[in-house]
């Protein structure tokens, strides 16, 4: 049997494509969590991004407006979360859950008129170079701009956190809000910014799903990806580069599922669909077992409210 080397390239490329929304949402949430805020509303922000992007694309016809509109929608919905947790000092877990429930509901409400409408073709870059290099051609070329951005994002995020002053401030706020505040840093402002940034990235992740990955609107189309993105942040032990690895593993599980069905492997389809969730649990167990290591890498104030008396 001859295996076409370009076919392998295509499979790897499809794994990468399914990893894109996970990378975007996880990198956003990572910044939010690094500032000490646990936002469980990723799934809700993502689905809002998905419907906003698709609706704006259909109504305005402009892809640029749609992509940035979806990010803005993510920002707007995360503002609710930011206002509640930072200004009104509510519990992060409960507020995040409310955000997810609310987001799924409101997206279906808006999306009612967009069900069944075909999407638009999203332009891809370097299409012509696809056949120039065997194996690597399909991997490197012929993808959307969002795809390239997603794979650059972990490195940008890592650089931002380690090498820039603002990154240092974010980490300081997450690790010790009291001392950051004593240094004259406005903890609340930093956390607001990090939450809104997380919202923008989740919004973009959603837009990628509804505009590029499967260009159409389906109710509840994020299908738990927001929760897997949250798990990936723990998986990465808050290190952006490891998000890349985790997202590829999960993307791989999703794609392998399709191919195994195509080859006719006799495993119930439900088992394959459940695989990413089961693997997530196993991975969480493996990395959390060492409580000392987890404690060292977790932002110390994660999920705790900070209120400065004045």
């Amino acid at each position, binding site marked *: 049997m001859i295996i076409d080397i370009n076919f392998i390239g295509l499979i790897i490329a499809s794994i990468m494509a399914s990893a894109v929304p996970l990378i975007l949402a996880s990198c956003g949430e990572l910044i939010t969590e690094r500032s000490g805020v646990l936002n*469980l509303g990723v799934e809700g922000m993502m689905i809002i991004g998905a419907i906003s992007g698709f609706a704006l694309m259909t109504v305005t016809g402009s892809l640029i407006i749609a992509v940035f509109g979806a990010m803005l929608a993510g920002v707007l919905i995360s503002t*609710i979360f930011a206002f*509640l947790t930072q200004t*009104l*000092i*509510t*519990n992060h*877990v*409960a*507020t995040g*859950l*409310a*955000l*997810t*429930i*609310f*987001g*799924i*509901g*409101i*997206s*279906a*409400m808006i999306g*009612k008129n967009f069900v069944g409408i075909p999407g638009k073709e999203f332009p891809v870059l370097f299409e012509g170079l696809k056949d120039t290099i065997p194996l690597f051609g399909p991997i490197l070329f012929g993808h959307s701009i969002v795809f390239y951005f997603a794979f650059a994002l972990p490195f940008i995020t890592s650089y931002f956190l380690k090498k820039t002053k603002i990154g240092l401030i974010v980490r300081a706020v997450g690790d010790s809000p009291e001392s950051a505040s004593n240094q004259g840093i406005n903890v609340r402002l930093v956390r607001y910014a990090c939450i809104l940034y997380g919202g923008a990235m989740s919004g973009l992740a959603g837009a990628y799903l509804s505009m590029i990955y499967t260009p159409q609107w389906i*109710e509840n189309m994020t299908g*738990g990806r927001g*929760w897997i993105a*949250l*798990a990936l942040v*723990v998986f990465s032990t808050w290190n952006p580069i490891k998000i890349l690895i985790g997202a590829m593993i999960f993307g791989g599980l999703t794609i392998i599922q399709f191919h195994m069905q195509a080859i006719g492997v006799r495993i*119930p389809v*439900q*088992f394959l*669909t*459940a695989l990413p*969730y*089961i693997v*997530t*649990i196993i991975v*969480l*167990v493996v990395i*959390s*077992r060492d*409580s000392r290591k*987890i404690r060292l890498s977790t932002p110390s104030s994660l999920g705790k409210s900070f209120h400065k*008396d004045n």
Partner: protein
Amino acid sequence: MIKIVKRDQPSRAIFFFTPVLAIFLTLVAGGLIFFILGFKPFEALKFFFIVPIADKYGFSELLLKATPLCLIAIGLSFCFKSNNWNIGAEGQLTFGAIVSGGVALLFYEQEGFYILPIVILAGAIGGMLYASIPAILKTYFNTNEILVSLMLVYVSKLILDYLVVGPWSNPEGFNFPETRQFSDSAKLPLLFEGLRIHAGIFLALAAVVISWFVFYKTYLGFQMKVSGFSLKTAKYAGYKGKKMIILVFLISGACAGLAGVGEITGPIGQLHREISPDYGFTAIIVAFLGRLHPVGIIFASLVVAITYLGAETAQIFMQIPKYTGQVFQGMILFFLLASDYLLFFKIKFIGSKK
């Protein structure tokens, strides 16, 4: 001028007033959303909250929906009171339904007074088994219970899907994704002729009474409260933290499992794909809205159950998608959390005197 002052002590009166305030604000915001969507706000709210429960049948449906919500929320209040974030009740409900459904199918076409108790017990055990996974992983492997319990929801729904499509599907069922009908002895009796409300409501009421007793009359209830308040204090007092985590998860799993039993052995009488319209998630809101208090949870489950019925009515009469119910549920929780601010802070209006 407005000035915000911190209260010396959280206000007890406001503690029970804010849920009412939250419901009121949700109605206002809901009316606003309907207005934006181009409906007459008052008419829409009437269709949503009054029309569905205006007759005997509607009231029975209300109790039918409130029963699982109340039952699950009671279980969750054990977890939440002691600071354990079990958000996978939906999975525990599903797994409880699978186990009890499986047992009920074993008694296919058999009758006997002993069948129903066995089926109910099987559901509770199923829910407990499923809840024990996040509990054990949390206590012995330090794994985040939020993510584990949530991931297991997806897994349980896929197991159910596999069973009703595959090995358990009705052989005479023309490949519909459902099992055979349970025998009458495996079904919870209906309470009134022509209405769907069934004996499952007594399970919920029993849970309310038992939980009230445990919370306020036992040492265990006291321990839970202390651990929820401060884990350090609990440790200092020598409470067995691990045992308690597992116990509260088991209780809440059992309640969710029983809710699952009620869903399949009630009016439906078989296993099929969609046994629960996310009762397990909505019950989280019910638990908070009821202030984790057994009596509060009864009221909260009735209020939140209306959002289910209202969404159905609004879908039929106004072509509003049924997901509107979730919008209302999300808003209730938002406003409830927001109004908790008043517990800890006073807003003072200072006159502009010179």
